[in-house]
């Protein structure tokens, strides 16, 4: 039997569901919400994934503008384009935006869209919490950006070092503290939701070691988020209390040790960098096999090195603090662990190369970005290892050499990987391919611009140019490289423009079919774009690279050859699933498949809801109230929050109107 809501606990009879309080708050149902309203109340993981990605891309444009401002200012010595204070705001917001409002939500967007499909599920475990995550992210981002109109943006750097951030006047830092706090809630709810989805909602036969590697890497990243977010939450609470209530946590005059901030921040911060890179590593590990026409080399090793990175990522944080006088023992230990964490990272690089080795390579845009990722990330990883060498790092720390390192891993790594993913899955999301010619122009311009911009940072750093400065005098040998870098940044801007043109120009519907790349994983078995319920029948998974095995088999010589007849989705039901007792359901499905159209409308999905949006909106209200110490507003926000959560808890996941007759209903989740 096709399982429609298998994961939800039991019934709440329709009579018991609270009736809508008013016409305005009447619950939207699955039939008949379209347009803007439909998007605002949706709980469909695909729509939410798209909203995450589009919003993150818009923030990417904003963060990119900020970067251009910074580069214009630094393009020539003694420049007066930006004042020092403006520069501080812009560079702080640039870093904060790119990390928290671009790479994290873009990864979250792709994971949201793809994870359920890749594991053969119809939705995530908690659709409304999923929507909440997006709205909270948006609310947090807009809240932080509202600071620009309310007296000035955060100006203490993305790392927010105390005691500076404790003592800076104005509300700038308050916006940073509370904004990150809001974003943390988004990440935490998102992490719990995706973890439960992957652990609990896999299709029959989708054992852990059959999961696509992108699922694995995202899962590890979500676990890192789960455990890293509370640490920065505490750090931000301490700082927030210091700023609002004059507590002493970072008050050096009261005997405090400001290194506590650095410990807490980097205990979050280092896992965070893996949160930023692991999903991109997963994307690249999906793309390379498809365009090398070979399975991923060393799947198990890839999985375990990802897990190893996840664990070891907790033991290296103090490498950000080598210059703070931790003492020789601590410094040696953290230096060793930092070297050591490069091992699983290096293993991955060799696996990617081996995947391509002797493959039948083709080079469409996604593949180019994947190769760009491998090469650029390797450079960034190598400079990372040089930071791990303490005597060298004492020279490098706080110089542009560090800035070079993290841009090679974050832009050359994460962003290249994410762009590769966008080109690769675009036909699935949109039902049409992006233009190859423009895509290639995008890639080559970005590669060129990227290296022009960030390559010189290595030299500048080794020549002693400190980071976080708003201008510099002429005559230190920095002028030329800074100019080169500024020119490079405009080349990057041009490449992004090409991407936007590509998206805008390609609006004609195309027939790309289910599987335009001849790919390997489940998302390519369903239509592009997928229907709301993803799978008409929950697939039965019999192997890793499921789709590949449905399409290809091996001849006597071990070469893969296409199966004569395209295997339909349920062709493999004769093979027992490996890891699940659910196959009894699947046999029912075989019949269901015959009349699939007939049954389609009956696949009931959770209904849209207002509460995620309203619950998220209450958060900035609380924070404005706190920042400006207008307690009435804060309390009002708190009550709003409480009311929304309560209404949410009483609302069944599926509205009675959306339930077919005598169908199982869902329980009110406690969440």
């Amino acid at each position: 039997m096709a399982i429609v809501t298998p994961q939800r606990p039991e019934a709440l009879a329709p009579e018991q569901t609270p009736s809508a309080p008013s016409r305005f708050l009447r619950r939207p149902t699955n039939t008949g919400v379209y347009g803007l309203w439909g998007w605002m109340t949706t709980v469909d993981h695909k729509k939410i994934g798209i909203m995450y990605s589009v919003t993150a891309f818009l923030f990417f444009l904003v963060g990119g503008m900020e970067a251009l401002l910074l580069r214009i200012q630094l393009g020539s010595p003694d420049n007066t384009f930006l004042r020092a204070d403006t520069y501080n705001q812009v560079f702080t917001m640039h870093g904060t935006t790119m990390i928290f409002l671009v790479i994290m939500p873009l990864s979250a967007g792709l994971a949201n869209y793809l994870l359920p499909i890749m594991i053969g599920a119809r939705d995530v475990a908690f659709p409304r919490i999923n929507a909440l995550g997006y709205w909270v992210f948006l609310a947090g981002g807009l809240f932080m950006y509202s600071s620009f109109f309310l007296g000035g943006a955060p100006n203490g750097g993305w790392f927010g070092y105390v005691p500076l951030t404790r003592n800076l006047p104005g509300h700038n830092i308050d916006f940073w503290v509370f904004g990150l706090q809001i974003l943390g809630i988004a990440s935490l709810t998102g992490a719990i939701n995706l973890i439960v989805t992957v652990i609990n909602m896999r299709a029959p036969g989708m054992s852990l070691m059959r999961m696509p590697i992108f699922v694995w890497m995202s899962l590890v990243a979500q676990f890192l988020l789960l455990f890293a977010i509370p640490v920065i939450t505490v750090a931000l609470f301490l700082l927030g209390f210091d700023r609002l209530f004059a507590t002493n946590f970072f008050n050096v005059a009261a005997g405090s040790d400001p290194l506590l901030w650095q410990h807490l921040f980097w205990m979050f911060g280092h896992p965070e960098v893996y949160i930023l890179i692991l999903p991109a590593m997963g994307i690249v590990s999906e793309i390379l096999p498809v365009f090398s026409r070979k399975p991923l080399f060393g799947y198990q090793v890839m999985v375990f090195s990802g897990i190893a990175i996840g664990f070891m990522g907790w033991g290296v944080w103090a490498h950000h603090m080598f210059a703070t006088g931790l003492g020789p023992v601590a410094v040696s230990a953290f230096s060793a662990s930092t070297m050591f964490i490069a091992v699983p990272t290096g293993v991955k690089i060799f696996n990617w190369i081996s995947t391509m080795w002797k493959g039948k390579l083709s080079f469409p845009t996604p593949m180019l970005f994947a190769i760009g990722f491998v090469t650029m990330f390797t450079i960034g990883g190598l400079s990372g290892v040089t930071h791990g060498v303490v005597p060298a790092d004492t020279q490098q720390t706080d110089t542009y050499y560090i800035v070079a390192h993290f841009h090679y891993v974050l832009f050359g790594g994460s962003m290249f990987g994410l762009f590769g993913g966008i080109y690769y899955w675009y036909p699935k999301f949109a039902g049409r391919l992006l233009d190859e010619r423009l895509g290639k122009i995008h890639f080559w311009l970005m590669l060129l611009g990227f290296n022009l911009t960030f390559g010189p940072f290595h030299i500048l750093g080794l020549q002693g140019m400190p980071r976080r400065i708003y201008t510099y005098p002429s005559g230190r040998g920095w002028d030329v490289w800074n100019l080169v870098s500024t020119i490079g940044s405009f080349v990057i801007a041009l490449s992004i423009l090409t991407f936007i043109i590509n998206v805008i120009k390609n609006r004609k519907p195309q027939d790309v079919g289910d599987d335009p790349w001849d790919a390997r994983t489940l998302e390519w078995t369903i239509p592009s774009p997928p229907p709301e319920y993803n799978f008409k029948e929950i697939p039965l998974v019999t192997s890793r690279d499921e789709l590949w095995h449905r399409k290809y088999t091996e001849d006597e010589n071990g070469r893969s050859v296409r199966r004569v007849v395209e295997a339909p989705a349920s062709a493999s039901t004769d093979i027992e699933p490996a890891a699940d007792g659910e196959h009894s359901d699947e046999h029912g499905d075989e019949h269901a498949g015959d009349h699939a159209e007939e049954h389609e409308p009956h696949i009931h999905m959770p209904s849209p809801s207002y509460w995620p949006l309203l619950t998220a909106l209450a958060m900035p209200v609380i924070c404005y109230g706190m920042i400006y110490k207008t307690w009435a507003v804060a309390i009002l926000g708190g009550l709003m929050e409480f009311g929304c959560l309560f209404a949410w808890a009483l609302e069944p996941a599926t509205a009675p109107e959306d339930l077919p007759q005598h169908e199982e209903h869902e329980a009110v989740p406690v969440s």
Partner: protein
Amino acid sequence: MSTITEAPGSHAGVDPVHPPTSTGLTNEKVAMWAFLGSECLLFGALISTYLLFKGQSLPGTIRPKDVFDIPYTSVSSFVLLMSSLTMVLALAAIQRGDHRLTRIWLLTTALLGASFVAGQCYEFTVFVREGMNLRVNLFSSSFFVLTGFHGAHVTIGVLMLLSLHNLSMRGKLPSSKAETVELVGLYWHFVDVVWIVIFTLIYLIP
């Protein structure tokens, strides 16, 4: 899909109350465990902050031994511990289908929790009268924030317990929903265990 046309129970071997998930555990339960894992680091970071700072206050300012009233706090700790017991009894009762007892134990648990919070508020006012507030020194800041955070967690737990009680009163907490009680119970025990750690590390160890 075809679910609709089938009579309930035709899911061969599928228990409608515990529907099939890959692990056999419900989503809600896995989510609660994940959340509690996250909370461990929250309290871990707060407790570390306290331990780091408690000896660093400026000389001449208020110290833990000046204010702590161990017998008083032992009693309130005992009250909280007992509430874990009553929570277990509430769960056992709903699993047996005894709704009257369920409500009694839920309410008892909530009341014990509320007394703990009330006791904490009283303790705070005493401390404040003795000249200790959020800003006096490092000890006071980290003490109030750590125990305050814990108290907030207990308060949220009390609210959840009262909501359950209310649901049960209105007949909306059938035995088939015993898991909801179990989940609130998980949270409640977690908050209790955290208090044991706080009490030991902060009050008992000098």
